[in-house]
């Protein structure tokens, strides 16, 4: 059995949640509403985040372009994703929505530009 303390981000109340994991069996306490339990279950089984960063650009109005993963990726892959982006260098023009790196860190998710650098 394992327990974890989390803060729910579902609403400003920010309930302090305690998650107890017993193999497949997950119980959540401390939540004021069902959304807290849902959040906690996802957070302990498959936590995911959208990752945002910047990538180098040459020949444009600015030396960097902001990027994001097109959808959320497993939390454990964040570091690999950031490292992979360090090796990318683009040439202007770059357009919002352009794929900057496909299938980043084997997540099946593409990294796209979030800004135009002309």
């Amino acid at each position, binding site marked *: 059995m394992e327990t974890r303390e*989390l*803060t729910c*981000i579902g609403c*400003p*109340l*920010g309930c302090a949640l305690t998650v107890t994991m017993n193999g497949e069996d997950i119980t959540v306490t401390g939540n*004021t509403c069902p959304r807290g339990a849902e959040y906690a279950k996802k957070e302990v089984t498959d936590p995911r*985040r*959208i*990752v*945002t*960063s*910047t990538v*180098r650009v040459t020949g444009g*109005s*600015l*030396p*960097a372009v*902001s*990027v*994001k993963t097109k959808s959320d990726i497993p*939390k454990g892959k*964040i570091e690999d994703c*950031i490292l992979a982006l360090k090796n990318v260098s683009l040439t202007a023009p770059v357009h*919002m929505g352009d794929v900057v790196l496909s299938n980043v860190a084997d997540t099946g998710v593409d990294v796209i530009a*979030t*800004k*135009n650098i002309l």
Partner: protein
Amino acid sequence: MNRTTDLVIIGGGPAGLAAAVAARKAGVQDILILERDRELGGILNQCIHNGFGLHTFKEELTGPEYAGRFIAQVQEAEIPYLLNTMVVDISATAGGKTKIVTAMNKEDGLMNIEARAVILAMGCRERPRGALNIPGYRPAGIYSAGTAQRFVNMEGRMPGREVVILGSGDIGLIMARRMTLEGAKVKVVAELMPYSGGLKRNIVQCLDDFGIPLKLSTTVIDIKGKERVESVTLAKVGPDRKPIPGTEEEIPCDTLLLSCGLIPENELSGMAGVTLSPVTSGPVVNESFETNIEGVFACGNVLHVHDLVDYVSEEATAAGGRAAAYLKGELEGEGSQEVTIKGEGGVRYTVPSTLHVDRMTDKQVVRFRVGNVYQNCDLAVYFNDTCIQKLHKKVMAPGEMEQVILLKNKLQETENLTNITIRVEQPTA
């Protein structure tokens, strides 16, 4: 160079853009947006994290993407704008109802633009370092969190490797995550107050995710280093916010980020004679977002600091619509009874702070912030001395903007209504 226009909008951030689009939709043809930066979008251009537009677009956009949606609308509507153009003065024409907006840029030099209405949308700036009340020498390595954000996100440069952040406002929290991901070690976020000034989701996603400690009731009392910061000393503070002897802790680092809050950018407004609120540092406005100067409106962070851009867009859309109504001569009812709205017992201010019942729309949103963390309390609304509604709140915190909605028909039903009060109350159990 001199020109005339119906509506000048000062600032091309989300507030200015949404106000412009709304004014055009309401039929104003002759609009000019003036922006001092080299692109439209305002502060959002440096906010590359996601989390914008959850309310407006039901999507989690990054700052530049959110701004991009509004820039596209401005361009589609072919609303003219000037970039690299700094507004330096606003004044009223002698006797007339029009305003003179003085601006300058490289191509046109100094220009006077005569406008029938003006919308202030200059946003906000970071509180100056003065907030850091430490005597002595300032070595390199001390930045405001927003400056650091600009460095890292727009220029791709890192300000340092070992970081202490003072202030737990959202920019500081977001920079803690950003710099950690870029390989820096963020050692601690220290907050003077006993609660964080930032959104809960940012504490979880920016600090907890990376194991960065948040120390509340803590401040910086010393900075060591000649050329460059070598360490900062933290100490706990008591309820009087004074350092408690014996709690000092020296933390080696090369960078100190200050995230001490934002303050509306109102030098221009002050020069123009606009009355400012001592609480928000933004203009005092009525139900139409109009300041004490007829035909001068305000919206967005210049009015009061927002944490959600969605509310900025909503407010600016309303302000743009009201400015259009003014230009068409439809903002009548000046003479009608003016109702004062005030915040009491924990409600620090309200926007708007006055309203004319005849001029208000069916629903009037009143936004405000509370001065402390309140749990299980009621938000009570009084018409004159009668309580007309109570809303139970599980929690309210200074970091999150609150609102109540006033219904026009309710106001019309109340005889001799002169003031509305919004107050935090402990429920009588």
